């Protein structure tokens, strides 16, 4: 076991300092040191996906990523995805499909879906099933989760359309319409 070292992490767009040995899995740092509950411990083997987080926009299993390998990359957990007032489209879709039973796997399902939409804005059914096949759910929420992901794809399209409309507004025009 190597000695603890001070690390600087970029988590949910804040810089966090932690002192730990570099082989400590990121999951333990997020849950223990940063008091985040979104990423869940489920298996510790990278089998179930409950611990997934986004690193530079890609879904990774935080139980298998050593702290020392994270570096300055941007880590987003479920807590950093959206806010209750401004939900991420994937979160909104899961609420609208009531796609949770016990909900313990949901962190991984939502993170995997957000990562899918980051790399493929219009995934078909096969792409959706492929993206989620390595995330386990014990309650059997499979149908609701698939429905929520389909809905999330639609919500993300609307969100992109809204953003591109805003982007098209010139700074001057934007200033004029703001109160």
């Amino acid at each position: 076991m190597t000695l603890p070292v001070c690390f600087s992490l970029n988590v949910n767009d804040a810089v966090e300092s932690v002192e730990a040995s570099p082989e400590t899995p990121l999951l333990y740092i997020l849950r223990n040191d940063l008091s985040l509950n979104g990423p869940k411990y489920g298996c510790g083997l990278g089998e179930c996906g409950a611990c997934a987080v986004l690193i530079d926009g890609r879904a990774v299993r935080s139980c298998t990523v050593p702290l020392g390998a994270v570096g300055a990359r941007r880590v987003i957990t479920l807590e950093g995805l959206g806010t209750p007032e401004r939900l991420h489209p994937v979160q909104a879709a899961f609420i609208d499909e009531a796609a949770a039973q016990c909900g313990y796997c949901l962190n991984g399902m939502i993170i995997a879906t957000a990562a899918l939409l980051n790399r493929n804005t219009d995934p078909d059914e096969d792409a959706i099933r492929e993206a989620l096949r390595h995330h386990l759910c014990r309650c059997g929420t499979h149908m609701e989760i698939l429905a929520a992901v389909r809905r999330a794809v639609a919500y993300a399209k609307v969100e992109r359309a809204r953003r591109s409309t805003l982007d098209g507004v010139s700074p001057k025009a934007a200033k004029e319409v703001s109160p």
Partner: protein
Amino acid sequence: MINNLHSRRGFLKGTVLATGGLVLAVQLPRMGRATGPASSSEEAAFTPNAFVKIDENGITLIMPHTEVGQGIYTSSAMLMAEELELRLDQLKVEAAPPDLSKYMDPILYDQATGGSTSTRSDWMRLRQAAATARIMLVGAAAAKWRVDPAQCRVHEGTIYHDASNQSSTYYDIAAEAAKLPVPADVPLKDPSQFKVIGTRAKRLDTPGKVNGSVVYGMDIRVPGMKYATLAISPVTGGRFTKMNEAAARAVKGVLDIVTADNAAVAVIGEHMWAAKQGLDALNIEWDAGENGAVTVDTIVAKMDQVSQQPGVVIRDENKAVDVIANAPTKLSAIYRSPFLSHSPMEPLNCTLHIQDDRAEVWVGTQVPVRTQKAVADITGLPPEKVTVNNQLMGGAFGRRLDVDTIELAAKLLKDTRYPVKLVWTREQDMTHDYYRPYYYDRVAAGLDKDGRMIGRTHRVTGSSIFARWAPAAFKNGIDPDAVDCASETPYDEEAVFADYVRDEPAGVNTSWWRGVGATHNLFVVESFVDEMATATKQDPLEFRRKMLTKNPRALAVLNLAAEKAGWGQALPPGRGKGISLQVAFGSYLAHILEIEITDEKEVRLVRSVIAVDCGVVINPDTVVAQMEGGVIFGLSSAMFNQVTFTDGAVDQTNFDTYRVLRINEAPKIEVYQIKSGEAPGGVGEAGTAAAAGALGNAIFAATGKRIRSLPLAEALA
């Protein structure tokens, strides 16, 4: 350290009543003795209940049952909102404290959540509690205004007297209402007036589950809390013989090493990673003890032997054995169902703070009273000095109906005086489960020359869970769960013989598992009914229909499922459909599963059609979710799962060796609900019980191979 205990404002708040608040202690009529099992707590009367709380925080349902993902917090809130004339979002839900006198499940005779009894238990009492509260509140407002209560109306928690243009919120009149006598026998709404019950209300708990704000037992943080993880003897009854304590203490952050009964060791640390590293450094050596030679083969060989002797008779009508002996067509078979693990997504955990004069526990449990007693028994504290903070559960499937984990936590942490969160790794969880028993079934049947079943026998051999969990329900050697759906079927039967041989497997703890006895027995009975149809060259659907002359609700679900599944339509080669029909948990269900044998000789689940009559439906979306979830849970196990033992230790340690049906492997599932005015039946386990029989029958239809043992992966190998 952030204290996140109160982050779920308005959802699962502390159980201490705010001062000045009103608790309407609702006097409910004692319910008739249900058909469920009696327990040692039988003397606890079903007397004053307190389910409604109105205070400055709002209107709260004090929830007698626990949320394991089945949606009960939402459907029970719907019952209460209906009679209190509230919108669902006006009602908060709070976990009931351990109190058998108020929160006992009248079917289970315990404060317990299991057996798909919650809605059946709460259907009357929560509506009565709410209606009683509403009548008292309206009565108080009417008295204040000096008007006739009958002239008042309630809308969304506000009482109106339109003629005098007066109104009052429930909260404003609550203190007055509390002074009124509690009325008895309050009238309930006519179902035609329902506004909430029967609607597709959104679950109350989803928003907190999509952003990480809900708190499961695993997420508990209390001030000063340390972390611990443990190793338990790999073999039941084993003991540790050697460990390197110095190496563990040398790990930075390790605080202490504690043991229990020479059979379990926990390392406590400042950090979970330190505790885990410390545990690894201990390098514990174990002596396996008397169960060190146990394998599944030794267990099954014994079951084969004991099942050849007569068991305790459950049902004996019209000399079934003689009828079969003289029948023109007779058949017999042995069916085997493996040990299974619960493995909920949230591994076992328990946070405990034991002090000299009191203790506090934070845990997700299906049995809060047993939890309190477990900590009290180990610590020597009186139960009232043990505070139980029940948490949301990341699944349970029966595992959290036992308190072995809480007892062990209390033994390990008895002498620590600071709070500790003890976490089972997935490996410790899976290898120290209380498993679904292995069952060994001998069945036989006789059919007459017209292919009519004229006699049936069924001998169940397996562990009795009731004998351990609720000895009072284990009467005269009969475990009513072990033979559920074996001795009684939905079909017309004249000559039946059913008996039970109790056989406790050496070195294996057994317990309730989603779908309980019905799951194993329906696999056997529904597969064997198919065998009878095959033996007499009859269509499995027609064969069943002819035997349902006295069971219109069962026939109706069977017909509906057959129609929706397109039974009888030609299928491409390699495909097959299988039926499973059941009356279980107070609900009627028919399942028709279509499968395909792929070019790689693997089983692909194509389409699952479920028709269900569960009486009055509280929330149709919840019924659909439970049917889908239940059938997937059952298919997952039937296809892949078994727990085996080598040298007394469990072979399956994590999800790499205990496979879960993946999202891309799920069939298309269609759920059809029959509209019914009957009292509600249970839905949480019904789908699970309907899975394996339909799967085995579909395999037979596709391949001609009869599945008489599970899991499928092994049976087909």
